[in-house]
């Protein structure tokens, strides 16, 4: 009985925050217009020739994101010429995580010479619509009859700590499947990451 009550109390306390939101594989994704580190606004509509996009929610402060920086740069160089540009989006509220402020984003983008746009989700609506929960968190979109369809959600690969130890490159094989006209398998993976910082 005690168990039952604590379950009820728990549901009252937290139940509403656990409701699932955001995209699932197969959903239609919305475009966005966000401020890039170069001061310009960027939308996916600015890429009429793209076959799809590798959208990565990421940030400055999170060591899991930092550990993937070089791998994100490599993905961009490999897949933008093939029609799948990387677009990085920082979803964090910089009043809660000062290292993720717009000015710090510019500093990091210059230090690492990011070859991809690094956008600020200033009103934090994009990560909520997509359903990103952590950094890094990848959404691969494919253009199909004018729509952007979510084809893969998850991790970049299967080792956040050491690129040398990776045995499964999820993003790379997902794009390879799309290029062959198939669907990624796996289409959904999980990864350890930093919580996206927002005011509840």
């Amino acid at each position, binding site marked *: 009985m*005690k168990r039952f009550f604590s379950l009820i109390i728990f549901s009252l306390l937290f139940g509403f925050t656990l409701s699932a939101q955001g995209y699932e594989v197969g959903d239609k994704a919305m475009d966005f217009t966000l401020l890039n580190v170069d001061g310009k606004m960027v939308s996916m509509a600015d890429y009429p020739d793209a076959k799809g996009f590798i959208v990565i929610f990421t940030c400055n402060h999170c060591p899991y994101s930092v550990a993937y920086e070089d791998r994100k740069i490599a993905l961009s160089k490999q897949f933008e010429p093939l029609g799948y540009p990387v677009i990085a989006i920082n979803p964090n509220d910089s009043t809660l995580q000062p290292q993720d402020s717009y000015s710090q984003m510019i500093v990091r983008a210059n230090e690492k010479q990011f070859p991809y746009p690094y956008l600020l989700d200033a009103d934090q609506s994009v990560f909520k619509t997509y359903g990103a929960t952590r950094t890094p968190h990848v959404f691969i979109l494919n253009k199909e009859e004018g729509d952007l369809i979510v084809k893969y959600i998850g991790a970049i690969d299967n080792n956040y700590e050491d690129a040398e130890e990776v045995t499964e490159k999820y993003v790379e094989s997902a794009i390879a499947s799309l290029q062959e006209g198939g669907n990624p398998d796996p289409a959904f993976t999980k*990864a350890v990451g930093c919580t996206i910082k927002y005011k509840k």
Partner: protein
Amino acid sequence: MPAFFVNILILMHTVFSEPVNVVESKPAIMDFDTFQQFLEHENDTVYVINFWATWCAPCVKELPNFEKLNQKFGDRNFKMLLVSLDFRKMYETRLIPFIEENKLSAEVILLHDPDANAWIDKVSPEWSGAIPATLIYKNDFRVFHEGGYTFDELNTIVEPLIP
């Protein structure tokens, strides 16, 4: 006795030794297969298993709430594990100094298993992988929460589970 079993015995001794109010200066390092046993006990003990990292601000912010809970119930049928997801290379440079500086009374282990997609669902299918995250269980009762906890929230869940 094969070394493997000796290791398991040492590990079990480390994790179950009472009282818990002792600073363990050297957290055990384990992969998920070794860690998994701590998610499956059916021994009437309340387990509070918190996933965190030294660099994770919301995790560090809520640690005092866990410490307070551990102080309150540590001598009862209660076991707290603070499961660090820091990188292996930060074990000596960050994790151990952090435990010492903050005088953590709850036991810390370093879960070193970067193929997280293979094990996140085994902790809870509700977990996206973001930290902080906490599993509280006793026998077949389980509550998982991704995000922070206040002391009162923790206490509300744990207190009724302790006879």
